[in-house]
């Protein structure tokens, strides 16, 4: 399988000032991150809060400038592109966030939200954009009568699907999902995962899921990369990682999470609850 993204020696610093003395200090959020993402794969990047995983997602999506290193996307270094080339490059990858409610403009209707990227990129006429938006809503299994509804009139699962429809509008190659399933209950998570799997097959998509929940990613990831202390410490196929974790940090993460079956079995063996 060929490579879609190659991240090399990526680093990200934030320069901040101390409150009282006004002297500067540097906060390092990413430290020499190296990662290869193969085309068509579903990769999960897992780590505790503070590990740098959300920063990595934002740097990859070019929402934040990186401090050093290279991001090779389909043969081009995103960090070295001219401004004129950036607009075209941004169509290739899209980011989906944890809280769909705050990622969607509450004053726009569903169809307007999905059509917005097309409008910004000046694609087609207004009528054609609406048609395409309706088609995308159909693909994410949102019923047509939701067209004129606003995000806060929809359920959490529907909002997340709307965010996915919007992300697909420009036909990206890569979807980055930052804790996109975390606020959903299990039933909705399953629905979204099934939908994502179908979309992946239909559109040859590559997924990067950012998650703090190893248990959750074990249900769907092909590959897992573990982040600790601002860098990637282990990256393997999911099967291999869960069966034979090599890095001590990964092992720690796995031990902390008993499965539902284990917990329920423990309940049965307890005499006093």
């Amino acid at each position, binding site marked *: 399988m060929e490579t879609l993204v190659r991240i090399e020696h990526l680093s990200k610093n934030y320069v901040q000032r101390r409150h009282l003395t006004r002297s500067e200090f540097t906060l390092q959020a990413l430290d020499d991150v190296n990662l290869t993402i193969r085309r068509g794969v579903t990769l999960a990047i897992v780590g505790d809060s503070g590990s740098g995983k959300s920063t990595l997602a934002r740097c990859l999506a070019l929402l934040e400038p990186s401090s050093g290193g290279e991001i090779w996307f389909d043969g081009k270094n995103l960090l070295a592109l001219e401004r004129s080339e950036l607009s075209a490059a941004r169509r290739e990858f899209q980011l989906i966030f944890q809280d769909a409610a705050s990622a969607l403009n509450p004053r726009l209707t569903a169809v307007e939200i999905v059509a917005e990227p097309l409008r910004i990129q000046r694609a087609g006429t207004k009528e054609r954009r609406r048609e395409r938006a309706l088609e995308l809503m159909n693909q994410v299994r949102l019923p047509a009568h939701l067209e004129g509804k606003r995000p806060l009139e929809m359920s959490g699962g529907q909002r997340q699907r709307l965010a996915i429809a919007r992300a697909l509008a420009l036909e990206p190659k890569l979807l980055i999902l930052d804790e996109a399933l*975390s606020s959903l209950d299990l039933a909705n998570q399953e629905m979204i995962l099934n939908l994502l799997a179908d979309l992946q097959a239909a559109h040859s998509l590559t997924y990067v899921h950012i998650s703090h*929940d190893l248990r959750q990613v074990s249900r769907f990831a092909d590959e897992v990369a573990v982040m600790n202390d601002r860098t990637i410490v282990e990256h393997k196929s999911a099967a291999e990682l869960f069966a034979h974790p090599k890095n001590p940090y990964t092992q720690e993460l796995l031990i902390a999470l008993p499965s539902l079956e284990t917990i329920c079995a423990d*309940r049965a063996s307890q005499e006093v609850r």
Partner: protein
Amino acid sequence: MESLLQVRDLTIRYPGSEPSPAVDGVSFRIAVGETLGIMGESGCGKTSIALASLGLLCKDDAIVSGSIEFRGDNLLSMDESELREIRGTGISMIYQDPGIALSPVMRVGEQVAEVIRAHKKWSWGKCREESHSMLARVGLFPTERIYSAYAHQLSGGQLQRVVLAQALVCGPALLVADEPTASLDARSQANFIALLRELKKGSRMSLLLISHTPEIQASLADRLMVMKDGRIVEEGDFDRLYANPSHAYTKALLRGSRSVRVDGGREAEWIDEKQAAR
């Protein structure tokens, strides 16, 4: 078993929003020492129930009918001064985001002491001592350093423990926890749940636990209530619901389910029953 909390026909409407009620004729009880878990997707009414139990629904924003009896007295017919007596000492609540509950400009230990001072007429010295002791009981060490720290100096897991200390320090009979581990990473989650289990073991405190994570409910709940669209779908002992759910939605929330494919590959939309027929 005596009921600590008895909810009867609770209906909550938010005028100006959806025509259907957020909570629609819900009845349930919590016994002394019992943990009742509530599961359901966002918008099912679980948070509204939690807020109503603490008298936190503003009378201008919500129309409430039915009754919530705490130790036999209806919370919904109490005035603010009566409710203030109950909050902290009778019923306490912790939320998903500990950052919101804590002041950024006051040392966290002082914020726990402040809660004691508001409810008991003790000297500041005694309140501080008790605060130290509570911080230790929720596993925050070194206690001295944590006491003097500001919120931004602590991790999410530590902050949630501080907020828990605040909630428990006056010994409430009922703790309401609304997605208490949702903003914590996996290991902090596991630690926090273990802490709750330990604290519950030594006391007769009841717990109303809102969480959409099955593993968390499995770790703590005696009974479980599944809600959807403001109504109770199913309720009963956790073990029974896990082993033998009566309703497909319960099964889906606890274990997930293989989606049912009907009509040329489209998933059955039973989750979103509010939709008009296709």
